């Protein structure tokens, strides 16, 4: 493969700080505008298609090294690309859709990881 000269990424701390401030301001503005917008109790509109939860354990749901996911963004420094396949529920207009996606196992989103952690803590 090609040898690439290592570049040093230097983030100007002042710029970074300014950017950070703008980001936080935008986040706050977003939260606050929503708070004002929605005075009444928000309604629940979480229609879930029946088939989503029926699919018990898909043998491929926990996917150690699936074919397309092995390419590691970090250039292979962390060799274990341990990913979990999840269903993503989305709406297109009024219709629900399910798509698949891979999420790193260590993501807090993944229930099994949490249990694993709990087990480790007990030791």
């Amino acid at each position, binding site marked *: 493969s090609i*040898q*690439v*000269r290592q*570049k040093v*990424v*230097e*983030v*100007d*701390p002042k*710029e*970074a*700080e*300014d*950017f*950070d*401030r*703008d*980001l*936080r*301001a*935008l*986040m*706050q503005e*977003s*939260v606050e505008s*929503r*708070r004002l917008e*929605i005075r009444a*109790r*928000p*309604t*629940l*509109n*979480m229609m*879930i298609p029946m088939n*989503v*939860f029926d*699919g018990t354990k898909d043998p491929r*749901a926990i996917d150690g090294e699936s074919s397309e996911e092995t*390419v590691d*963004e970090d*250039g292979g420094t962390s060799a274990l690309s341990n*990913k979990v*396949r*999840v*269903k*993503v*529920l*989305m*709406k297109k207009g009024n219709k629900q859709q399910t*798509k*698949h*996606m*891979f*999420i790193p196992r260590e*993501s*807090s*989103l*993944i*229930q099994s990881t949490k249990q694993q952690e709990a087990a480790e803590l007990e030791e």
Partner: protein
Amino acid sequence: EETGEDENYEFGKGDFTEHACRYCGVQNPACVVRCNMPSCRKWFCNSRGNTSGSHIVNHLVRAKHKEVCLHKDSPLGETILECYNCGCRNVFLLGFISAKTESVVVLLCREPCLSVNALKDMNWDLSQWCPLIDDRCFLPWLVKVPSEQEQLRARQVTAQQINKVEELWKTNPDASLEDLEKPGVDDEPQPVALKYEDAYQYQNVFAPLIKLEADYDKMMKESQSKDNVTIRWDVGLNKKRIAYFVFPKEDNELRLVPGDELRLRYSGDAAHPAWQSVGHVIKLTAQEEVALELRASQGVPIDLNHGFSVDFVWKSTSFDRMQGAMKNFAVDETSVSGYIYHHLLGHEVELQIVRNTLPRRFGAPGLPELNASQVFAVKSVLQKPISLIQGPPGTGKTVTSAAIVYHMAKQGQGQVLVCAPSNVAVDQLAEKISSTGLKVVRLCAKSREAVSSPVEHLTLHYQVRHLDTSEKSELHKLQQLKDEQGELSSSDEKKFKALKRATEREILQSADVICCTCVGAGDPRLANFRFRQVLIDESTQATEPECLIPLVLGVKQVVLVGDHCQLGPVIMCKKAARAGLAQSLFERLVLLGLKPFRLQVQYRMHPSLSEFPSNSFYEGTLQNGVTINERQSLGIDFPWPVPNRPMFFYVQMGQEEISASGTSYLNRTEAANVEKIVTTFLRSGVVPSQIGVITPYEGQRAYIVNYMSRNGSLRQQLYKEIEVASVDSFQGREKDFIILSCVRSNEHQGIGFLNDPRRLNVALTRARYGIVILGNPKVLSKQPLWNCLLTHYKERECLVEGPLNNLKQSMVQFQKPKKMYN
């Protein structure tokens, strides 16, 4: 050898694939998203490049756009990201939740859907809501980060270029980065210089900067309106209505201070007409309530408590006075002496000596004995038309200033004007000077007359009220009438004003010394006064034009006191700050070759605590005026890792988080440990007023206050009495024990506020008896100065980890520091 740069790679507009990142050109469909703003629709990638946030996050933040759409070839296909429950598309509010038992996830907004109670009862686990934008980047498993190869091949854009191209897109949405090279785009203001031809040129440079800062300040303050404010009503001693309410604070440095003007509004309902009134902030309570004294007491809807709105009333006074001072400096020959005029502009001037008979001793009655460096400073200053005194922390600069003012006043050249940028500093100085026996008048802004002051008896408004309280005094009679009725008839009011003005003038004229803020020196009540001798304390915290206000009243001899190694003036407008408005006059004079007299003996810190600041900020010149014995906290049983070294760096690995308001940071582990340390101090007999907790982030400050009073094992009241505040609000003050919570703990972004060496200096030099620093050495060690500090603590066996009752030396590895920025 191949390099990452490919000469043949074209970045011309036409060569871009439609979905290429508009900043860097990366075009991998898995790595890019489209901004969904109808007027924008540009594509950006999820790589950070040379900035702290990824390109797409950079764009959304700079352009204030909030919706995105995924690429059709990405795993989820062409999809606009939105809340599954309510359809909200604001990516700054979105995050994933997963089902409790299955591998199913959905996007949900955090306001309001995340707090919908009914959801908790369903199959979803809300506790692990995972924000879409984390660490300034989209979740990398949703939008991939381009590989290193791809990034190296891409265009290397800087944050400055991004800023500029975003600015350009506002007027020309199709512009490319190449268009930046064209002239006329960059409208940065003219930067400050070291020397100026004349005062007109000086004004030409500074006036636009002050204008920029004023516009920014106005914009900021006027956008600070709060709705749905709840009011608690009270009546003041002067019978005026006082409204108490909570005004949320943020990190953006806009803090309410006493004297600020706010407008309180009620929009009206069936039973109440619409109502509004302006008032002044008279205090901020310990419970973080604002007390607003209303100007009009008629028609106040005191039977109501909810649904009020509060706006900031912006006033241009301080900026107008700076502009006025610069104008005077230019057009009025007598505004400052010729020598000072040329010196301030950086012209070569023959050194001048002020011919004064020097006193035999340099101390002053009512003040502590001066040490050698203080005597030297006083003596030298009295003989020079313009001088600088640098007072590192705890070196007695207020006492030295007071001694200088005492001797100046005794020289009989007229009244001495004493200023500082902050009211707190002016009060302190006024008190010290007054203790020498001089007649001191403290002039306050009209808006601050209701604000309580530790030197109330010295204030002009107090003295006017108490000068003559006999039966015969017409002014006194009218004042009493006004207090009782709330107002006077128009003829009485006219008479009252005239009498008051005359009395004010009389009192001011009979003073030896007049103390006010720098901006206060532009008060119309001083318009006809001339001051040959002026001392400005904390001058390193004032901008140049601010410092100029007290000078243009005829100054012949000026002393600037300060410390350019501590925090400088706060400039809100980035453009103005970049152009150099944040540099104080003191600093420029140092650059021009004027050497400050440095006070060298510090009386505050335990010698172990002064060692690092002395070596890092003052070339090792700081001497200790206190011994280890004098700073031994007897009877205090605290687990210092090394006895006789009351300091340690407590290694913390907890994560930083964005606080609930979304505008700041907090770190739960650090907060929990702060509480443990505080409790240990309190148990061993330290009282709350001896402890100060410093943290640079408002989010963490609020979290610590809350956490301590909820989880502390001792009486709640004890924790409430402990001051928890920012580095900046501790400047100029001290505590016996300081706990510093650094908060920041992330790989990609900097360490924020703590990057400024001057802020670190201030944080490290507040403690008298002991200091505990909590932080993540892995992150902090990247910054060279923090790396030195960590090494210092490690070498002295004060870098520790583990539970507080069993601290062990930490073996944590530091990172190599990056190059120093200035």
